[in-house]
């Protein structure tokens, strides 16, 4: 099977664009990614489009109506917060299978503000949010964090430090939604949403889009695109296996562990070989548990990792130097491909102020409620 490369990628600066349409946002990222490798939509043999909130509305086809209706196959994906990564992975798989040489993956979302999850009213029966516990995302991830506290004594302050770090990183990223330092006291004293997640420990609901052009090895060489190409060393996707509290509370740990293990095996390497990580910090509590789920440290060591700054820019294994979902923003369908953009930019040594020096191998991770987890390993050529 051929090697598959990211030859072009870009994202728009995340923000709130209520006056724009989903297809327009997607089209902007698509054109940016195509321009990044000097190709056009006419060169693409298929399009994979990730979008969650308009999953039934042919978003990929609508993007083509903005940038060129070439008649190629379009596949629209919806897979919780792994939606964008799933679109990317479908494109990767088609090239691996030898069906195409060049495909475009686009992820796009228009969000609006407010709480996600929990559900509203029903026609029959009564709403159970706040009656039978809480299913809002801040509460779900509060339980995720406190399960870690239960096992290892992780503190409110340690969770809060994740936000301090990622908000700091975002000040170095011109494409992040927020670019503001948030000292520890400010994070901890912000409005409490669901303990221990304060408002500054919740990801930002933003609009955004990101895109990537995927290419076979033969075609990349033929087109002279290898110099800035980044190899996809592994692409893994998992659904949540049975675990004791998964049905009552949503357990994002085993699903991430499976995807990570599959990706490391496919790449033929381990966590020690990874130079930087973009992981799913939808809430500050989530980042802590994923250090362990991705094998970046031993079980129970995540609290120490955030205390010692090992995951900050300049540390042993920088995590979310883009600012992460917490500060760059989290447009669900775009997030997975925005992570690919971030890692690719570092491996190309084009990340400017936030560049992870000497980065050769990077890992991306997204996990969404339901559950779906995608892990990709990318390598500098």
């Amino acid at each position, binding site marked *: 099977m051929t090697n598959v490369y990211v030859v072009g990628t870009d994202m728009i600066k995340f923000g709130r664009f209520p006056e724009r349409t989903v297809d327009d946002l997607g089209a902007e990222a698509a054109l940016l990614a195509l321009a990044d490798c000097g190709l056009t939509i006419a060169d693409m043999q298929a399009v994979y489009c990730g979008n969650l909130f308009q999953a039934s509305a042919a978003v990929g086809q609508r993007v083509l109506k903005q940038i060129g209706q070439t008649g190629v196959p379009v596949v629209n994906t919806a897979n919780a917060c792994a939606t964008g990564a799933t679109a990317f992975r479908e494109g990767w798989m088609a090239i691996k299978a030898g069906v195409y040489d060049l495909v475009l993956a686009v992820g796009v979302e228009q969000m609006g503000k407010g709480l996600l999850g929990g559900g509203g009213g029903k026609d029959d029966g009564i709403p159970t949010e706040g009656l039978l*516990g*809480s299913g809002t995302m801040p509460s779900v991830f*509060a339980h995720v964090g406190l399960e870690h506290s239960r096992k290892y004594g992780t503190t409110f302050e340690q969770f809060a430090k994740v936000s301090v770090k990622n908000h700091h990183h975002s000040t170095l990223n011109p494409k992040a939604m927020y670019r503001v330092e948030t000292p520890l006291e400010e994070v901890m004293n912000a409005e409490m*949403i669901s303990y221990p997640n304060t408002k500054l420990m919740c990801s930002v609901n933003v609009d955004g889009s990101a895109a990537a052009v995927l290419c076979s090895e033969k075609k990349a060489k033929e087109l002279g695109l290898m110099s800035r190409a980044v190899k996809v060393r592994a692409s893994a996707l998992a659904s949540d296996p049975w675990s004791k509290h998964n049905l009552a509370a949503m357990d994002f740990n085993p699903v991430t562990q499976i995807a990570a293990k599959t990706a490391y095996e496919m790449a033929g390497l381990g966590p020690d070989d990874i130079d930087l990580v973009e992981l799913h910090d939808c809430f500050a509590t989530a980042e802590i548990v994923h250090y362990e789920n991705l094998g970046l440290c031993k079980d129970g060591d995540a609290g120490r990792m955030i205390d010692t700054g090992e995951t900050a820019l300049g540390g042993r294994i920088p995590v979310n130097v883009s600012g992460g979902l917490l500060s760059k923003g989290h447009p669900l369908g775009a997030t997975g491909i925005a992570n690919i953009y971030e890692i690719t930019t570092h491996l190309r040594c084009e990340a400017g102020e936030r560049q992870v020096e000497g980065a050769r191998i990077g890992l991306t991770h997204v996990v969404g409620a339901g559950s779906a987890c995608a892990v990709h390993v990318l390598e500098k050529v």
Partner: protein
Amino acid sequence: MSAAPSTTSALPKAAVPFLKIPEHGEPYLEGHRCSACKEVFMEARRACPKCTKIGTLKPEKLANTGKLYNFTVVHRNFPGVKVPFISAIVDLDGGGSLKGNLVDIEPDMSKLKFDMPVKVVFRDAGRQDKAGNKYLAYFFIPA
């Protein structure tokens, strides 16, 4: 269809399908135990989510006692939902795990302890559907 209160039945409705309200006797939580792997699930399924055996889940009455596995105090929620409240995940004695509100205790993190014993109680949900039907819900209280 009339929405008048006169259409409501004498027995309240259950807030969730696994809360059973017999005509005689006390309400209870019903689980489904897999005869192959012994795991307990709150809802009926065609096959066991854990061991994949088909047709092994059998309904059984679950215990009214358990331990507090996990909790959080929720301070912000949707409009109309009274905050703060405690969202709790409880492991019932003998099997079954479920999420619910922990009540009759201050919604204060310092008052809550992992594995503290709790009891399951059944009370009016304080919410009605569009037809004005009353609902019975389960709650956890400190034992």
